[in-house]
């Protein structure tokens, strides 16, 4: 199979318009004949569900949590980008496009990214109309801040809870369609399998998490908006239920998985405290606008920060990158924190932390202004650490945060399985090998509000799928397979708990496939993963019954998938013999320890095709063409 990205011809700025004109339309009266399944109610899934229902489609929406409002998107703090140029500081669609391409270290598609920048402005308008209480200037205009990696102020925000407010906006729109009976909502459901019938995505198998019953749902098209796979590392800033299972089920049914090695390590998280730790907490990177990152100049300096004089502090980011200072992109900031700690200059009990200091900002702006910007973040920090950041600098360390890799999609956001569309963090589309701050919310909502409504219509108009009954034999086969896998997990009754396995998997990946990667370590990791997976299926202890609300079983299913997926991730990491963005292979770096790309050999998307459990997946390459920007070595000096 040859990958066809379906990028429209013509000049970059006209592609989307032209494409929209060329897409087939579904007659308004016919829309209600089509059923669409949406899995996920984060920004991508909620916005898609609401918009498709508004257009007249029959929508069935699924999520794991007890309410759609609790999807992981709710936790996004910092903000959402748009090319409004309200600040008149030189922003434009082109600049947002360029920054995103460059920030992604030239591993994303020009056409997708340009479209994202184009629709970004409509997102803000839409959200304002929904009553999202964005921050305002005194005069009542929308406020902006600058955010990691950008030299213009284009980030819109609602205190430190932007994701919450955007999601509640989309959840409101979704709720309106539920009330109108255009969306049927299924909460506390876990998608276990994708149904592919006659080569098209036609439904899903889910587990009702309360009763434990498996359910079959058919549709004319399926949308996955199931988020990212960061929890493969066990410790991450993702919510506890974030998983790869839905995407991985689709992969096993023929959807290619693209760039699984592109994961993002966020520089500003609260450092790990102990072995009981269940997740890591992000401190929004907006803090880097006012906070200054430093470590003591002398390795091993154990004095408390207040005792370390200005002249004894190393503001390493400001020194090394005078142009961007504390605002360098995430991958650069994370790697530099690790470098400092590797040199023995880390602070705190574990020595795996650097300071983020607000002393100067507090002196300059006063506590009121700083509290208005970051109050809730400071409070959260104090709750967790018992340190008051108004008085003593925060301690931060990088943590897994976001996954740029995901299911491969074409320009229409359709995967390699016809009728399966993938939105939001679950797809690979727009962020290359590194995502810029405040761009995930933008992408999720762009996909859901403004792209899928056009492209899915064209698919349905063209494919006009026949109705399928849920007693179709393919449904029954999948149902039995899922049931057997659940029974097997419960019946092992081994000695190690699911959490215990997941922790070990996480540490294998963090050590060997994390911020800094080496071929020898990657090979070792592959072996360790295989061994751990084999042990899992002999020695896992799940407990409880399958016909029950059984949270361990939920997790056991997810960890089983992580154990398979992680091998694919390491395979992809090994395959990409270059460094780019968040993927840093130590063999490929500049003299200044920056990621060294190899544009001759690796200027492509790596899309993996499942070949059965025992065979290595097949690699397909989609080469990336840059016709509008010049490939350069990223520099933030």
């Amino acid at each position: 199979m040859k990958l066809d990205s379906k990028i429209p011809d013509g000049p970059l700025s006209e592609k989307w318009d032209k494409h929209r004109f060329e897409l087939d339309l579904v007659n308004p009266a016919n829309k209600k004949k089509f059923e669409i399944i949406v899995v996920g109610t984060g920004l991508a899934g909620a916005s898609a569900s609401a918009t498709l229902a508004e257009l007249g489609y029959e929508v069935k929406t699924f999520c794991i949590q007890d309410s759609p409002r609790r999807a992981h998107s709710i936790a996004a703090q910092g903000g959402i980008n748009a090319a409004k140029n309200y600040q008149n500081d030189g922003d434009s669609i082109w600049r947002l496009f360029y920054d995103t391409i460059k920030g992604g270290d030239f591993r994303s598609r020009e056409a997708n990214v340009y479209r994202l920048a184009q629709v970004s402005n409509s997102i803000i308008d839409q959200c304002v109309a929904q009553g999202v209480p964005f921050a305002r200037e005194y005069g009542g205009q929308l406020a902006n801040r600058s955010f990691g990696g950008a030299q213009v102020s284009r980030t819109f925000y609602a205190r430190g809870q932007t994701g919450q407010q955007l999601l509640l906006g989309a959840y409101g729109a979704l709720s309106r369609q539920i009330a109108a009976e255009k969306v049927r909502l299924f909460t506390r459901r876990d998608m276990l399998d994708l149904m592919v019938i006659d080569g098209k995505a036609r439904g899903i198998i889910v587990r009702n998490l309360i009763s434990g019953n498996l359910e079959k749902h058919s549709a004319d098209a399926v949308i996955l908006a199931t988020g990212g796979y960061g929890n493969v590392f066990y410790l991450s800033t993702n919510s506890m239920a974030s998983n790869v299972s839905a995407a991985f089920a689709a992969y096993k049914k023929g959807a290619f998985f693209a760039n699984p090695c592109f994961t993002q390590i966020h520089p500003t998280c609260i450092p790990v405290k102990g072995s009981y730790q269940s997740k890591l907490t992000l401190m929004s990177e907006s803090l880097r606008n006012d906070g200054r990152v430093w470590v003591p100049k002398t390795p091993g300096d154990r004095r408390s920060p207040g005792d370390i004089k200005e002249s004894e502090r190393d503001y390493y980011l400001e020194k090394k990158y005078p142009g961007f200072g504390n605002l360098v992109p995430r991958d650069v900031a994370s790697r530099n924190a690790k470098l400092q700690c590797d040199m023995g200059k880390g602070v705190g009990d574990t020595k795996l932390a650097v300071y983020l200091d607000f002393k100067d900002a507090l002196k300059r702006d006063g506590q009121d202004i700083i509290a208005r910007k970051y109050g809730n973040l400071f409070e959260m920090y104090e709750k967790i650490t018992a340190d008051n950041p108004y008085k003593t600098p925060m301690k931060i360390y990088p943590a897994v945060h976001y996954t740029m890799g995901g299911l491969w999609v074409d320009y229409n956001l359709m995967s390699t399985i016809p009728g399966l569309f993938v939105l939001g963090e679950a797809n690979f589309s727009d962020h290359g090998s590194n995502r810029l701050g405040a761009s995930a919310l933008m992408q999720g909502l762009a996909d859901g509000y403004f792209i899928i409504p056009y492209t899915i219509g064209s698919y349905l108009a063209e494919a006009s799928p026949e109705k399928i009954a849920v007693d179709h034999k393919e449904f029954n086969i999948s149902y039995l397979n899922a049931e057997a896998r659940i029974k097997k997990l419960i019946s092992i009754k081994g000695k190690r708990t699911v959490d215990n396995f997941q922790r070990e998997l996480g540490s294998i990946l963090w050590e060997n496939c994390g911020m800094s990667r080496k071929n020898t370590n990657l090979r070792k990791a592959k072996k360790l993963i295989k061994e751990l997976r084999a042990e899992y299926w002999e020695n896992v202890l799940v407990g409880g019954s399958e016909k029950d609300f059984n949270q361990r079983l939920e997790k056991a299913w997810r960890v089983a998938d992580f154990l398979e997926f992680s091998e694919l991730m390491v395979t992809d990491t090994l395959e990409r013999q270059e460094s780019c963005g968040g993927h840093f292979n130590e063999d490929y770096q500049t003299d200044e320890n920056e990621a060294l790309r190899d544009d001759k050999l690796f200027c492509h998307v790596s899309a993996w095709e499942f070949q059965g459990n025992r065979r290595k997946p097949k690699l397909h390459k989609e080469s990336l063409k840059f016709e509008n920007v010049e490939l350069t070595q990223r520099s933030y000096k």
Partner: protein
Amino acid sequence: MTKANGEKCINLKLKVWRQKTKDPKGRLESFKAENISKDMSFLEMLDVVNEEIIHSGKDPIAFDHDCREGICGSCGAMVNGRAHGPEKGTTLCQLHMRHFSNGDTVVIEPWRSRAFKVVKDLVVDRSAFDKIIQAGGYISVNTGGAPDGNAIPVPQEVAEKAMDAAECIGCGACAAACPNASAMLFTGAKISQFALLPQGHPETKKRVLAMVGKMDELGFGNCTNERECEAECPKEISIINIARMNREFIKSAISP
């Protein structure tokens, strides 16, 4: 018994509500939580206890949780009779064990409210809150065609007040803490957000009547000014929002 390790760790006695299904028969079961680091969150403490329960072949304690950052609203339980535990303005997942002392007995129970039925152990069904929102907790705009975001200026103090109300995480503590099982704080917060913002004005009347009506229909009680909701709300949503809702309700009910 393990000895509490210096000052950093404590030992606790837990009494946890166990209920297998929505059939309301249940009881308190005792567990020991030993060597609990004071840096742990309350939910991490439960994780540790659950790992032991699993090893002993019993059914671990079921509890809802997801973000563990105090924002998704999944978690929540009555801890020694207080919704989300003893700390003000804190969700259960953000409650840290440093607020407990060695030897404490901690009673953990699910939200108790007419409109929230127990699903299992500490897990409750809060879909009634979703239904209140479905009744009108939104501004009716379809995707597309929205005017420029700056077309309608919103004074900063108005935006801030709307944001104060919009911070609600839908956790249910207010209704659980209220002696009347009232959902007024939750509903009032949403109504206030839209009553404050100019975008919300056209529908205010319809919205307030529909949401208040739904609240009553679902079995939530009335507000008799006990102020328990405000005291227990992890986002410290103010009861000013209830007053605002009542004002809008009266305006809507008497105007033609």
